[in-house]
């Protein structure tokens, strides 16, 4: 699955479901906490991606490095997918 496409799409869908108004277009430089998606929305997004992809890298990380931007968020999922 192309995560660079799937994750922003899932984020938009969760934002609509969580009644969050996204601020501006989503790019890899978008700061997650300033995107308009709130804390509940992010938790829902991670849960949705766990269903879609069968992984939650944020609950599997031995070294906790959390993403600031959408690009970093996608990269964490890409790395988790590569590690299988």
């Amino acid at each position, binding site marked *: 699955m192309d995560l660079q496409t799937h994750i922003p799409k899932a984020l938009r869908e969760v934002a609509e479901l969580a009644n969050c108004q996204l601020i501006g277009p989503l790019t890899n430089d978008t700061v997650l906490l300033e995107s308009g998606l709130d804390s*509940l929305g992010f938790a829902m997004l991670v*849960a949705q991606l766990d269903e879609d992809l069968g992984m939650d890298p944020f609950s599997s990380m031995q070294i906790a490095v959390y993403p600031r931007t959408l690009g970093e968020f996608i990269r964490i999922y890409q790395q988790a997918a590569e590690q299988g």
Partner: protein
Amino acid sequence: MTTPKHYPSSSFRPLTEADLALVWQWRNQASIRANMHQDTPIPWQQHQAWFAQRDASTSPFFVFYQDGRPIGALYFKPHPPTGLEWGCYLGETDVWPGSGLLLEIAALDYAAAQSDCNTLHAEVLSFNHSVLKLHQLFGYQETAITAAASTRNGVHYQIHHFCYSTADWLSNRAAILAKLPKQIASAAAFIEFIN
């Protein structure tokens, strides 16, 4: 093979003088000031004076450590006769997804653990939609909506007043956590207050 789950530790430690500069930087960020009653930057001297004069026993202020790293603040002040009022913010932007929910849970857990606290109170500005939504989701009672004394960016706004009986929180806690994405309830098990 199933990878063992790892959830972040959420430790709340009392504010010390060593934390002052970091907390001051967080509090003066535009995105945090925007949702505060006082939205103008706080001068360093005023911040120091606040720390020197505050009564930590009645108005506890905690720094939120996620896996040992300071990422935000959670604070309380008395709400007479038998309540506490709380506030919080995340000062860092690279945090575990759902950290704001952990703050919401931690505030209620802290209040419920205080023998002299019967209700937890909160005030939210009317344009802070995400927190309004969270308080409603958690089951706060909205007790009043009052007009703010000032305008924000030239626009009038309101203050939403909420309260939560700590006895109700203890009854509702499991059901509320069950409504949240499942990793939140798992991470909530790692919330601790260190005095």
